[in-house]
């Protein structure tokens, strides 16, 4: 069955074919992406969340870090739509500003992991030999350490967790997966003629990697970067929840939910911890749908499913 569909896909006179002929693989992928309804809707949902968080000062003029000891664990009121938390901070304001932090942490952790992963993956996959061996053994060792245990132990050693430090710890502990994926996609590329010809006409290693390897591996890179961002938003919230993430007074969705570890708040103030949870759920869901759409878009075989 599979083989049959395979053939029909490649031999079928597709009405888009003439159009796709002049497009780059990236453009073809983007064109295919727009046909995935869930993914396109998710792009808009994610954009909406980002815009709402950026425009936080428009929706509320309460400082999210300001504590008020007279207003502790209050239910919703006109001034505080989602009530206040255990320090008397306004939950609604923290929800909007917290979204900023959660998104920024997720994005920058993804970005730095991408930089490390692409760099090491490129070195290992392009040069091979000794460099490859060293990098791959390092990834083996990193992968065998339980991620959470490693991060928590590091967090226990450092004194105060800041956003920059948090992002660095995440990026420095989670590059191995991406490194492996990038190296893997380079290995098959390395044997191809166009790489040989590029080397023959004297292109520098940097140029070959930047111009030939990375663009050809862009599919797995983009897909994994997207899914990584979703994972990091969850990781940030989970670590903040257990008290090892971004500390008070900075608002994040994770440390807002951690208020619910207090059984009183869990029971009496669902409006305090359910909205940030839904914020994470919707954001991560949207990113995962986008990632899935990208995967299908970049994978030529995905049409059969």
């Amino acid at each position, binding site marked *: 069955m599979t083989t049959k569909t395979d053939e029909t896909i490649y031999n079928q006179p597709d009405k888009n074919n003439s159009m796709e002929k002049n497009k780059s693989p990236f453009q073809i992928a983007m064109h295919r992406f727009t046909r995935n309804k869930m993914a396109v809707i998710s792009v808009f949902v994610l954009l909406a969340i980002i815009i709402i968080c950026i425009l936080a000062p428009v929706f509320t003029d309460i400082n999210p870090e300001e504590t008020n000891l007279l207003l502790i664990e209050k239910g919703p009121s006109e001034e505080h739509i989602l009530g206040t938390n255990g320090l008397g901070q306004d939950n609604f304001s923290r929800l909007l500003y917290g979204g900023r932090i959660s998104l920024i942490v997720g994005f920058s952790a993804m970005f730095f992991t991408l930089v490390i992963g692409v760099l090491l993956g490129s070195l290992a996959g392009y040069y091979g030999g000794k460099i490859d061996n060293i990098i791959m053994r390092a990834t083996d060792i990193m992968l*065998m350490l*339980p991620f959470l245990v*490693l991060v928590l*132990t590091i967090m226990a050693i450092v004194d105060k967790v800041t956003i920059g430090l948090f992002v660095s710890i995440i990026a420095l502990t989670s590059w191995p997966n991406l490194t492996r994926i990038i190296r893997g996609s380079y290995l098959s590329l390395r044997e191809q003629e166009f790489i040989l010809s590029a080397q023959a006409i004297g292109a520098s290693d940097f140029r070959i990697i930047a111009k030939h390897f990375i663009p050809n591996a862009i599919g797995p890179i983009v897909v994994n970067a997207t899914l990584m961002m979703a994972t990091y938003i969850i990781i940030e919230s989970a670590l903040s929840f257990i008290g*090892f993430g971004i500390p008070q007074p900075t608002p994040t969705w994770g440390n807002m939910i951690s208020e619910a570890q207090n059984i009183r708040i869990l029971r009496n103030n669902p409006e305090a911890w359910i909205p940030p949870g839904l914020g*994470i759920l919707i954001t991560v869901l949207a990113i995962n749908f986008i990632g899935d759409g990208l995967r299908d878009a970049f994978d030529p075989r995905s049409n059969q499913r």
Partner: protein
Amino acid sequence: MYKYIIRRVLVFIPMLFALTVIVFGLALLAPGDALTGQSLADPNVDPEVYEQQREALGLNDPIPVQYFRWISAAVQGDFGNSMVFNGRSVAELIEARFANTLYLGLFSLAITIIVAIPIGIYSARHPYSLLDYGATGFGFFGLSIPNFFFGLMAIYFLSIKLGWFPAQGTMSTPGLTGWEAFFNRLHHMFLPGITLGLAGTATYMRYMRSEVLDVLGSDYIRTARAKGMSERNVLYKHTLRNALIPIITLMGFEIGVLLSGAVITEQVFQYPGLGTLFLSSVTNRDYPVVMAIAMILGVLILIGNLLADIFYSIVDPRIRYD
């Protein structure tokens, strides 16, 4: 195959060594005397007394000597004494918690398998059916919801609002025995179990679906059907046997994810397992306990990966590693 297994076991040893060095190194970086079970400097005590104490405990020895002393004790199950729990031995503390985490992990794995595999098979046999779309949607949901948030929702709705399940602990009355104790335990484990199992269920379901789809599309299934084999036999004799191989391998590799999830889930439900012990030890800077748990979890992950690789090489003779 045997050559591969032997080589794989040999790789295991240096990795185990690297793990111990990293755990030891992290503890060395930590402030305070991590390896002795003694607390940080008390300003009321003469620093000279501390110096004598450090000398007596061997903390002034060269680092490799200290490492060797720690590792040779650890191999014998002696991880020193806790700094916090009145100096009780770490092994004793962990022993009390380990079984709870094991039960929770096995229970959630059981739920995962019972739910994910049948649904995955159904989805693959009826792709694009209503249930398949439902399952795909559930898969996205399970992978996107933070498990602590799911756990809190479960406590709020199923425990507080409806009162169906207890929200905390492992047993309501300590004196229970026999079946009563067993069911009481299960009742307590239900919410943490589904919370911990949710992400796994979503993952296995997706894998199962794509594996079964792959196998059903292969030539030998067409041959089996062509020679008139019943659909039942096609499914059980050919499809499942082949589709389950990657799933079982996945279990070996997913053990780390399961253990990390257990740390968070136990915290949500205040379940007295290794995870809650680990978190409280990290908070209290009780390094002997932190090191011991980090070692145990690391070793479990290594063994899981090792077993997965060995299993794979045994059941799938096509695999050749050279």
